[in-house]
């Protein structure tokens, strides 16, 4: 069922928009091209941002510095009641989506998809975003330098959300 919905989503949107536009007498071909030109410009404009983000995160992960931080933080998060198996995920998730998915894969294959840890990791992955990537990309695209409270607020709500997720899982899981 879910698969059908996700398969039908894009064609359905394209169909509805083009039918609606055609009926309303919009010159849909030229309008599409006009938008597409902007899409191409935007994609090229953000490429330097992508390279900068990828390299920084790549160096941090590849040098094992990330693992070092996870080991350092482990005692603190244990006291707070966070299962230590999900700490790597908590650390990587704001930095890299594909990296986080790799951690979820490890957890699921090691502990089982329907174990408590497996469920927590799955839900955490599904209910959070790559904060650093999104911020660098979106602000970078328009050249805003002072992001004010954006990162602070995003990280505070991310941490609160993690504990809410663990709480929800431990209450609904049993």
């Amino acid at each position: 069922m879910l698969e059908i919905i996700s398969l039908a989503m894009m064609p359905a949107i394209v169909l509805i928009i083009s039918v609606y536009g055609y009926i309303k007498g919009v010159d849909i071909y030229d309008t599409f091209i006009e938008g597409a030109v902007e899409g191409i410009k935007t994609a090229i404009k953000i490429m330097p941002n992508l390279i900068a983000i990828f390299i920084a995160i790549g160096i941090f992960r590849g040098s094992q510095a990330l693992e070092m931080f996870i080991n350092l933080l482990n005692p603190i998060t244990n006291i707070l009641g966070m299962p230590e198996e999900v700490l790597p995920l908590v650390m990587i998730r704001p930095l890299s989506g594909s990296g986080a998915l790799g951690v979820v894969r490890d957890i699921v294959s090691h502990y089982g998809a329907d174990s408590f840890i497996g469920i927590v990791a799955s839900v955490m992955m599904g209910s959070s975003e790559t904060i650093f990537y999104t911020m660098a990309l979106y602000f970078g695209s328009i050249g805003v330098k002072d992001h004010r409270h954006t990162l602070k607020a995003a990280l505070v709500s991310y941490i609160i959300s993690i504990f809410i997720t663990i709480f929800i899982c431990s209450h609904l899981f049993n």
Partner: protein
Amino acid sequence: MINTIWFLLIFIGIIYGILTGNLDEINNIIIKEAGEGVTFGIGLIGIMAFWLGIMNIAEKSGLIKTISKGFRPMMRILFPDIPKDHSAERWILMNFIANMFGIGNGATAFGLKAMKELDTLNHNKKIATNSMAMFLIINMSSLQLIPLTVIKLRHDYGSPNPTAIVGITILATGFSTLVAIIVGKAFEGGRRC
């Protein structure tokens, strides 16, 4: 802020790499990731052109305007700085909807367009406005209702019920977004620009 994080990621990474004798790995990563950024960006060109092209039709035909009417009260509360009927509001909404339904690259295209529109309302181009901050804070709290990649992964690893997490995930996502809005509003302070 990104400036500092970017510096710290590279600085700590390289210093730690030197200390642990991982230097050749770092050389490989720099070459590989630089290429990866370009490949990823090129991959985005086509799909972003497609989404912005299609949405331009939706915008010109008035479809987005019709849809966004129902969300106006919510948008007014979240983004009081955006003038009525400004297109920034519509692109933000499109980004939220694309995010909710898991159309990641569409969401990126609309989100970048929304930032561009928000930028036209900004008096000081270097400093983020409340609306920009709120938009990103909500965006970064995750809005996706059905986490398809996670479901697929659970399926691949033999879960008898890969979709079992959907309900909990929607609940968790709802809470994370609510928390993000509250925290975002709390941090806004009195400053307006």
